């Protein structure tokens, strides 16, 4: 079993971690390229960057926003995220592993605090699961994986907590560590391919939405042409109104698409 554990926290971890980093880089770059392309397609360059930034920061630190809708669920979700991010990164034994492999480390949380944070993640994870299962609206929306994720994320926290706190036989300890490390690796690996990718994508949402509301000029006509509706009795104005000569003139100069 020791060999399995060593494999999981050695080569397998490195592979999963590398895939996670590369996968996340790929989707972030793709998103930014998409945003750039959309921005270039639109002739109007007025984008309310300030508003986008304000909303983005507002959701990154959502303390002021949580209380408006479903406050309990929102608070639970917030604490869950905080614990889930801080605990594994600042756990002394994780840092030690990292230092042994890579050669540098960073300050760790006191073990007592880390323990409390683990308990926080476990309890709020259960809360998130129940919040989804018990809310009739959320239940209707949810898919299988939506229930799976909180449970899967809780797994390394539960096993890690038991392994480092409970008085258990060495064999049970090893079993706990086995589950702990493999589930941790699995989560890292899955991040770029699932909705967990929101860890890097959510901060880009406001930007994406802001740019997506910027429409390319002439797109409607091109859509109709592509669909073969160019000759349908449609919305294209015909020369009946006082504006027509002017519009024709503008089209000739290329100021509008005719």
């Amino acid at each position, binding site marked *: 079993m020791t060999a399995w554990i060593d494999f999981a926290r050695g080569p397998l971890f490195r592979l999963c971690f590398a895939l996670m980093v590369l996968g996340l880089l790929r989707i972030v770059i793709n998103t930014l390229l998409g945003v750039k392309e959309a921005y270039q397609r639109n*002739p109007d360059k007025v984008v309310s960057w300030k508003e986008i930034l304000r909303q983005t920061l507002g959701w990154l630190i959502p303390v002021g926003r949580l209380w408006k809708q479903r406050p309990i669920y929102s608070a639970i979700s917030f604490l869950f995220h905080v614990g889930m991010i801080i605990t594994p990164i600042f756990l002394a034994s994780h840092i030690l592993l990292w230092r042994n492999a890579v050669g540098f480390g960073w300050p760790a949380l006191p073990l007592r605090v880390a323990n409390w944070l683990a308990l926080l993640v476990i309890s709020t994870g259960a809360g998130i699961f129940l919040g989804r299962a018990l809310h*009739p609206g959320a239940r209707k*929306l949810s898919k299988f994986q939506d229930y799976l994720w909180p449970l899967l994320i809780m797994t390394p926290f539960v096993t890690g907590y038991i392994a480092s706190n409970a008085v258990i036989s060495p064999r049970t300890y090893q079993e706990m560590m086995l589950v702990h490390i493999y589930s941790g690796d699995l989560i890292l690996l899955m991040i770029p391919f699932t909705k967990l990718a929101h860890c890097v994508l959510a901060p880009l949402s406001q930007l994406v939405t802001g740019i997506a509301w910027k429409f390319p*000029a002439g797109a*409607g006509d091109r859509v109709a042409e592509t669909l073969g509706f160019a000759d349908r009795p449609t919305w294209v104005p015909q020369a009946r109104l006082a504006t027509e000569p002017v519009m024709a003139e503008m089209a000739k100069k290329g100021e509008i698409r005719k």
Partner: protein
Amino acid sequence: MTSVMKSLTRPLAPEERERAFASKKKEEVIKSQRLPVRYHVEDFDVEDRPRRFLEAFASILKHTNYRVALDHYIRVTSRCARCAVACPIYDATHDPRDIPCYRSELLLSIYRRHFTVSGILRARVLGDPGLTDEKIQELADSYYNCTACRRCHFDCPMGIDHALITHLGRYILSEIGIAPRALVVSTREQLIGATGNTSAIPVPALIDTLEFLTEDILDEKGVHVPFPVDQEGAEYIFFTAVSDYMMEAETLKGIAAVMKATGDNWTIGTGYYDAINYGLFYNDQVMEHALQKMQAEAKRLKAKKILMGECGHASRTAKYFYPTYCGGKDALPVISILEYTRQALKEGRIKLDPKVISETVTYHDPCNFARSGWIVNQPREVLKTFCRDYVEMAPNGRSNLCCGGGGGTVSIDEIRPYRTTVSGRLKAEQIRRTGANYCVAPCANCKKQLRELMEDQGVQCEIVGLHDLIYKAIILPPDLPSDEEATKRSAGHSVSLPEGGAS
């Protein structure tokens, strides 16, 4: 000032539900169109609908910017249902299908299944047949139950804009022929009809109306207030929802009075005088062509700025999409009359009598003004200077509640019971609780919807525009001799038509 959202949680009674969702459509029409929706749809090709839907979807993805948003949304959507509480429609129905995220998921799932590699592979493995006719029916029903008010956008931790998806869903549907007849018929008249506006008001009728309004003002205020028509080189060219010329005389009189008091040069063009743009509600091509007509008219008259009347969606399309379609950086500046009046008041160019309005006044934020934060405080500042008893409703400003007729639904007369029992339900309660005599709603859509809402829900509150009240309170300087001459002349003609303008 307690929020209605928290205290009103009584779901619809069964008889209310039945009334709201009753369909007046004939069975045979529903059968032949295979479309069990409450709104009327012009006849269209029903064969092979899923394939044509996907073709339209693909074509739109190819030529527009929606793809970047869809790609993003399918990755981040976490289906937490937090948006449910933000939606006034869900609040009334408590139907999970009315949760904004559920609505969006209808389209996102089609995108995932047919336009992503993983979706196509997954379907191969699981044998998923793909888009069905039933799903299109559900889309057509669901996307016109939503009023596209964008309130849920603020409550999505993942930043998904459900109104953008509603907009796209309606666009795709319209390309296979599914769009409310009320909107399509008006748009056709506006873009290829003889009158060139959504209410089919011919130019002579417009001129008559304007003359009548000028005479009215002369009677009431003793001052000659013209509605300048086809003046070349004016500072402002004025566009308002064309229905205002039939329904909102007081608003127009208020606007003309303000323009008279400031002395700024403005004009209405007879070539095109409709600000309504239903394209925002169902089709990007329509939106572009309507805006180009506006641009053409502004160019014809060599106007320097575009002044938008009291109309939310028209102002939003002009403000945010006019530069897109009509010249980018070089597009003319777009100003709302609400901004204009507030600025004029601040500069002391108009005077309002604070003694005239003694009733309780409240303000309804039209979504298309307030949601983006564009116009929230301006009208309030104006109202507070001359309304002694001004009260706020809650929630307000950027997180206001929709009147219930947004997204073009107000123009669909056959769904009035839905609008006044479901989508406008919280709004009615909200207005009732302010106890106001006047509710100021500076938007043609909101005005129509709120009046129907007050009537159907039995709330005693008069719905007015901002300039209706301004008209009551404005102090106009007496006519100069030259104006008096104009007044005399205007006994017959207060507006002069340039040659050929009324053809």
